[in-house]
């Protein structure tokens, strides 16, 4: 219900607080500006952090209107606690690629090349979405490999490639795109089996329900999508 | 008149046990003397409340400060005391002036008033020039004078001075002693002064209490103690030869059988004391009046003021004072055999 919010009319106004996964930092900051321009009188405030930390904050009563998560699992923590208003909607998807140092010195062409001895690979830990996706992809390709590290998040895995500590890492396409100066991305077919969904939801205790809904609608709109696909995300 | 201080101090620490009774009247000054490790500092600390009694009691001005049986213990800051510590314990971060002003401040004086009091006390201690110095910038004697001023500045009912003059030079010591004497004469409370200097005790104290190994061994005014020492330590302090034995008529027989003839009549356990100056030394058995003569060996010779002090071993140990001229004439040297003689009239005998 929208009662209790400062706005009960359908026209969004006032402040919207969006809790968003930190991988959305750049695209959502842009979308927020666009949204404010499209809806004068609104003001979007972001809280970017790891999805699971955001889920904890929301479940502990954080004053948030919208939650955009980098994985369905963390979204589930919020909806299971009954803090979502309605169902979560997947607004983008992200696909794995193999990140390799610029110029691909080890000539990695596909997943199987990662299993070669002497190739140091970083994966995400299974607990985080990119790790779960990587496992799915490797299973799908029937590739067994022993990574040297199971990173906490995509960024950490990527920076290991950037700094030359590993020869390859399974990361999202968006990440490779933002680090294009230092790394190349190698697409591989098995990634289709391991696509990660980004869900978004309006929260039940949203202080500004109307604006929250308007924001989610804006993200799902073509304008919002275009910003996201520009950053390398796929439309669902 | 009830005494200001009425205490029985029993403290046990490690293997050491202190057990002394102390009563000090209003305006009275008691000197606490005793060899190193006798428990003087421990007694002072117990009175100050820095160490708890294991038994006994401390009553000051009718107030019970410490009584293990009654589970009473008044902490040091609530006792009206002033303490000069053997190692001063001046606050290293405060100037001499602030050190002395500390007590008055704690007793409620305003800052300027406390500083004024402190400046007055420092001036009396001859430390006015150095009032702004930190303790680390003071010499040992200067620090001790500040410590004395600090303790006196709170005008305490019970003043506890643990060797307050030990670091002073001879001249300052004389002045400070005289001044302390004047102060103590006016002081309405009780004073306990620990000292190793018999002169301090004689000048400053109305009464002497001598402890050894945690126990009182002798107590009284200076004249009595000087005349009738009852232990080695006291005899040494007042410079007498002292022996203990059984008296029968005009003789006192020591434990090892040596017999001393004395002027007084004695019956039962008795002490015999005589001055080293009363001991005459001869190369041959002297004939004539001295009733006590014995062969002795020179164990050591030291200068002693203008004279020489000769340590004798033999049937009884003794010290003898001789003039350098006599020593030269006798050609005294360690290991030499001599005859020692003491006239009975030079001895003093008294019941043990």
């Amino acid at each position, binding site marked *: 219900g929208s009662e209790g919010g400062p706005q009960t009319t359908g026209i969004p106004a006032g402040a919207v607080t969006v809790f968003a996964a930190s991988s959305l930092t750049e695209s959502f900051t842009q979308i927020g500006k666009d949204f404010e321009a499209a809806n004068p009188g609104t003001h979007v405030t972001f809280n970017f952090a790891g999805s699971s930390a955001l889920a904890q*904050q929301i479940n502990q009563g954080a004053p948030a209107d919208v939650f955009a998560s980098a994985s369905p699992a963390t979204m589930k923590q919020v909806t299971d606690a009954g803090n979502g208003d309605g169902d979560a909607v997947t607004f983008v998807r992200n696909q794995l690629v193999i990140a390799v140092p610029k110029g691909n010195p080890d000539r990695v062409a596909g997943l199987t090349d990662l299993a070669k001895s002497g190739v140091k690979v970083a994966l995400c830990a299974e607990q985080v979405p990119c790790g779960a996706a990587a496992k799915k992809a490797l299973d799908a390709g029937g590739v067994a490999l022993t990574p040297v590290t199971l990173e906490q998040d995509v960024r950490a895995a990527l920076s290991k490639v950037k700094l030359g500590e590993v020869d390859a890492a399974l990361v999202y396409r968006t990440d490779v795109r933002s680090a294009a100066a230092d790394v190349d991305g190698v697409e591989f077919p098995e990634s289709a089996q391991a696509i990660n969904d980004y869900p978004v939801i309006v929260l039940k205790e949203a202080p500004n329900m109307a604006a929250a809904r308007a924001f989610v609608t804006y993200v799902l709109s073509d304008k919002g999508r275009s910003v996201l696909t520009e950053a390398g995300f796929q439309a669902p | 008149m009830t005494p200001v201080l009425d205490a029985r101090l029993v403290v046990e620490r490690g293997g050491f046990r202190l057990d002394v009774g102390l009563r000090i009247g209003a305006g009275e000054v008691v000197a606490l003397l005793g060899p190193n490790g006798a428990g003087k500092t421990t007694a002072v600390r117990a009175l100050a409340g820095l160490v708890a009694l294991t038994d006994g009691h401390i009553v000051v001005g009718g107030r019970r400060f410490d009584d293990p049986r009654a589970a009473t213990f008044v902490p040091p800051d609530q006792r009206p*005391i*002033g303490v000069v510590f053997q190692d001063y314990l001046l606050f290293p971060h405060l100037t001499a002036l602030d050190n002395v002003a500390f007590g008055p401040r704690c*007793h409620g004086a305003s800052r300027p008033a406390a500083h004024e009091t402190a400046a007055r006390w420092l001036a009396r201690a001859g430390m006015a020039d150095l009032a702004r110095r930190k303790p680390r910038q003071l010499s040992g004697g200067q620090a001790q004078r500040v410590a004395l001023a600090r303790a006196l500045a709170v005008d305490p009912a019970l003043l506890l001075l643990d060797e307050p003059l030990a670091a002073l030079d001879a001249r300052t010591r004389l002045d400070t002693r005289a001044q302390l004497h004047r102060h103590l004469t006016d002081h309405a409370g009780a004073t306990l002064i620990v000292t190793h200097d018999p002169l301090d005790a004689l000048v400053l104290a109305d009464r002497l209490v001598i402890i050894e190994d945690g126990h009182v061994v002798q107590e009284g005014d200076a004249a009595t103690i000087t005349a009738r020492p009852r232990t080695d330590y006291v005899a040494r302090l007042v410079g007498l030869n002292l022996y203990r034995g059984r008296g029968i008529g005009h003789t006192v027989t020591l434990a090892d059988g040596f017999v001393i003839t004395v002027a007084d009549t004695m019956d039962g356990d008795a002490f015999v004391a005589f001055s080293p100056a009363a001991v005459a030394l001869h190369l041959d058995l002297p004939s004539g009046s001295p009733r006590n003569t014995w062969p002795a060996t020179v164990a050591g010779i030291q200068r002693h003021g203008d004279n020489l002090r000769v340590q004798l071993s033999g049937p009884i140990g003794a010290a003898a004072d001789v003039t350098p001229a006599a020593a030269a004439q006798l050609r005294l040297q360690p290991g030499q055999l001599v005859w020692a003689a003491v006239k009975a009239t030079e001895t003093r005998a008294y019941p043990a």
Partner: protein
Amino acid sequence: MSKHDNPSTHHSDVLKPGPPAPVAPPRRRVGRRAPVALLIPAALGLAFLVLPLAGLLVRAPWSTLPQRLVAPGVLTALRLSLLTATIATVVCVVLGVPLAWVLARVDFRGRRIVRALITVPLVLPPVVGGVALLLVFGRKGIVGGWLNETFGITLAFTTAGVVIAEAFVAMPFLVIAVEGALRGADERYEEAAATLGAGRWTTFRRVTLPLVAPGVAAGAVLCWARALGEFGATITFAGNFPGRTQTMPLAVYLALEKDLESAIVLSLILLAVSVTILATLRDRWINTP
């Protein structure tokens, strides 16, 4: 003392030499050579601590530095960091020094356990610490719920929340450092103060505290630096709101999402500021007593 108190006349002025030269010459350096057995590990230790900084400096994008410096959020975040770290340090000193005193000077049952419990925020991964803070001080938390209902105060996701998170993480440093200093201090000065009529509070304020000032200063430096670098508990408990709760480490975290270089630049700014502040403050502070 009057002129005639003593048995001789005063003529020491005749015997005294002239007054001392008014200006003392500069003190000679007579320091003994430091032993190699100490210098070598010390140099290694220093290198170990400072080399990574050199790495950052090498990697920093110097050419783009000026424009990054003036990027909008940076100064705000820096100001917020300095402000919250300083307030957190004050809170830690006010609560932590008494706590250290109690641990060092009061003999109570369970002291050993309390002393070990003090280290909890050190060992707790900061993110979990943030969650724990949310559980207690959050809007639905044990204390936070009551505060919210009674006074309408919320701490989470506010600047006050940042201070709380930083203080929680940094206080143990202060407490342990000060307790160490207190145990090393000579208690006999406190006894002397007591005999002069100083109660424990006066003794604490006028004797103990000045004596352990170097220890308190060291603890406060640790505390401030740790608060300044705090990230996990802050982002979890206070969130990451620019201008309100986004401190420099949080900004660095977000910059890391974008590119390594921005993160390095932001870190270097934070370092430069804190090192400058410490270098100017600390020598003065630590040499006070």
